């Protein structure tokens, strides 16, 4: 066991630790917020994307953050670890900027100075404003109007790192996705073009969703297919926009309205009924019957076989699922439990609306399933010897936070569904869980790295602290 901090150890008795239980039975949980808001802990699992990654996904973009040192530090180092320092700049705010101005001058002059010092003018610049801009009443329209006047050849995009508003409205990443897709304008429509947008994890070209479309003569594009900014803007020619990630839903919906394209949100479905409904919705918006009944039945049959095989393989294991791995953790829990796989806990801090059906089902059929928060203060004790899983079974963790809290190297290292979708997604999920059972990963070295899918120049050192 790793060393515990001396003073803390002295003041918190083992008895107190033993009786400090985080998490609740789903039978006792309320929807959609099962846990009270309080102080927040942050586990050392950082594979998910933040606004730096999302902004950088727009090709040839340059990001400029206008904020104070401590707030800058996280985004500066995110860019540095991605190997993207050349696409990232910052303007550091000081007290005097607030005392003599409302941040308009420093923002305009600072951003201008940065741009003039870049080796080449980027075609698109994301300027990120922060909480202080909100509270000092900065005239954002004036800032962007002036920047546009100074640099007419650059497209400026307003981003926010306004964390203070994220619990009472769209999060910074939702707003950034809206702003990024907001620069795509209608162009001549191509009826055979479909965009697959919103997911930070690219879908493989041979995945079920793309295959369903391409086998029906649709050309599918993702943001990752765009080599430059012009190609990004050309995404406006699609006849249909498909969104698969909840945080991008509004952004893709707005884009579709602006470009008069069809829109469909296909959540990462994890039940056969939902998948059928989603294929029908996709068929409707595309105007073609994309899959036959026989094909769907056959797919369901192979999925059931894969799930049965998984259940046999994991008969003495349990699965722990976290919300960073998949936007439908309760849906996955339901799917696995329905097919005989033991799921003991699900890590989440809030429940999405699209999970309500799974939540209700689990509440009724698996009342003892534990919902465990990831940010409640008591979680500081887990991941370092205190067990979340109490059944005594070995744990396969689906997601980085589950791996951390369950202290399990048998884990599936994915975020945001990992590109899993549809019937193939279920089969691939089974394969990943089986692989995780066979292979133990060095999760303590893996999960502190940021942004799965991006290069990482980070050299993590797990511990320079001697073990007891």
């Amino acid at each position, binding site marked *: 066991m790793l060393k515990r901090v001396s003073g803390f150890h002295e003041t918190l008795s083992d008895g107190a630790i033993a009786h400090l239980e985080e998490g609740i039975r789903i039978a006792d949980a309320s929807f959609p917020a099962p846990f009270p808001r309080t102080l927040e802990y942050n586990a050392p699992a950082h594979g998910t994307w933040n606004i730096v990654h999302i902004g950088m996904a727009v090709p040839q973009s340059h990001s400029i953050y206008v904020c104070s040192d*401590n707030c800058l530090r996280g985004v500066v180092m995110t860019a540095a670890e991605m190997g993207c320092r050349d696409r990232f700049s910052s303007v550091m705010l000081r007290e005097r900027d607030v005392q003599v101005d409302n941040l308009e001058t420093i923002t305009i002059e600072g951003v201008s100075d940065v741009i003039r010092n870049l080796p080449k003018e980027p075609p698109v610049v994301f300027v990120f404003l922060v909480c202080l801009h909100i509270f000092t009443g900065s005239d954002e329209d004036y800032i962007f109007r002036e920047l546009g006047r100074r640099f007419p050849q650059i497209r400026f995009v307003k981003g926010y790192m306004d964390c203070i508003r994220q619990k009472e409205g769209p999060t910074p990443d939702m707003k950034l996705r809206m702003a990024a897709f907001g620069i795509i304008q209608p162009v001549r429509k191509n009826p055979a073009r479909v965009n697959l947008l919103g997911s930070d994890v690219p879908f493989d070209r041979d995945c079920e969703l793309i295959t369903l479309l391409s086998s029906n003569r649709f050309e599918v594009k993702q943001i990752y297919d765009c080599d430059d900014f012009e190609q990004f803007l050309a995404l406006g020619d699609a006849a249909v926009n498909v969104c698969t990630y909840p945080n991008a839903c509004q952004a893709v919906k707005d884009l579709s309205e602006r470009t008069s394209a069809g829109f469909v949100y296909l959540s990462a479905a994890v039940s056969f009924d939902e998948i059928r409904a989603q294929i029908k919705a996709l068929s409707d918006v595309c105007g073609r019957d994309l899959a036959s009944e026989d094909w769907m039945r056959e797919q369901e049959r192979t999925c059931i076989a894969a799930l049965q095989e998984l259940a046999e393989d994991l008969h003495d294991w349990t699965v722990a699922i976290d919300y960073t791995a998949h936007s439908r953790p309760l849906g996955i829990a339901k799917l696995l439990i329905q097919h005989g796989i033991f799921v003991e806990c699900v890590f989440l801090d809030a429940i999405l609306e699209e999970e309500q059906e799974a939540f209700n089902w689990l509440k009724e059929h698996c009342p003892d399933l534990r919902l465990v928060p990831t940010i409640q203060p008591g979680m500081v004790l887990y991941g370092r010897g205190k067990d979340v899983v109490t059944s005594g079974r070995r744990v396969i963790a689906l997601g980085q936070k589950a791996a951390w809290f369950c202290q399990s190297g048998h884990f599936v290292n994915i975020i945001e569904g990992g590109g899993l979708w549809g019937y193939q997604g279920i089969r691939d999920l089974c394969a990943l869980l089986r692989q995780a059972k066979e292979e133990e990963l060095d999760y303590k070295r893996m999960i*502190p790295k940021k942004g799965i899918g991006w290069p990482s120049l980070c050299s993590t050192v797990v511990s320079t602290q001697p073990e007891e």
Partner: protein
Amino acid sequence: MAGESWKSQTWWNLPVYTGDVSGVCSALYELGGMVVMHDPSGCNSTYNTHDEIRWVSMESLIFLSGLTQLDAITGNDQRLIDDIVSAANTFHPAFIAIANSPVPWLIGTDFEAICKKVTALTGIASFHVETNAMHDYTKGAGQAFLHLAKMLLSEDAGAAGDSGTLRGLPGTGRIIAADTNPDGRRIRLNILGMTPLDYPVREDAMAMRRILEEEGFEVVSNWAIGDGLQSLKRSAGADVNLVVSSTGMETARWMEETFGIPYTVGVPTGSFRRILCEAVKKSALTRKSSVPYLEILNSLPSREKRKNPDTPVRCIAGEPVTMGSAAADIVLTDGKPCDLIALTETRQGLLPEQGFTPEGERQIREVLAEYEEVTADPMLKEACRSGCRFHALPHFALSGRLYLNQIGSLLEKGGSL
């Protein structure tokens, strides 16, 4: 806005140092307290991802308040108080520290009142560290150490006589010999200003203690790697403080004013070790504080006089105490001049006459470009002139995890710099 001050605030490619809020957390990490960052989001993730190497291996009660816009606008401090009290009642921390972020600073949140209320409700000593996220870690960690010292040592301060020294403890009038005082005991010292932001190699804390003991000192406490509050509480009984980074300066000055304990500034590295240790003994003996690396660096000819084709101009850039000590070691080892360029904020009294304090990327580039040989964090290499002889010395508070596997012991660097 006056002039073009924004020119020192733009960073088009270079990173910024660890911020003040992270500095607070780093300073107090191992002491059994609870640190709450009054911030909406992000500070904790930034801190534990980029500014803290202990997060995976060692638990600490460091939390974020999750301030919301509504709470800020309505001045609802009650939620913060309630949440802190609730967590404190669960964990029973040794103390509670609250660090501040930009919005609470802007709206003038009354942290002194909040701390009083928290203390009254929990019975646990609470203090506010005046950060606002607009400064670097040296400010935050420095303030955190200072407030902790005032909290821990206040009883001793109350016992101090008019002379500013402690009754019953080593103080004025006690002549201290080279290695021992008249009572035959070793000179006692505190190590001030040690955090992984400047000393990410854990062994440095042990090596520091070993070196000082080899030199005949008794180490009372280390602020704050490896020592708990019990050790720190004995600090007022020291004869002298050794300040090993600028984060320890405020506490050293306060202890000098309050207890009459002098301080010596520097890191026992390479050839500089012996000079530093002699200076520590001298400080203890004469009760006068000193910064011995400055004496070495100030003895050098001016940079202008050194500018000739036969003498490459060399500098070392970073945090002034660690880099000043390294510069002194370079001068002593190579016999060649080396300028000190301070890139962090806490530097009063820590810079030689030839020291430079560039602000912002523009000035950093202008200053570094003047040198033919530079020792600095690898992220600063691109700011140096073409053909510059560059010696990489990764600094965790700047390059974070990027070069962690290349960071060696600062104490063992010696002439290898």
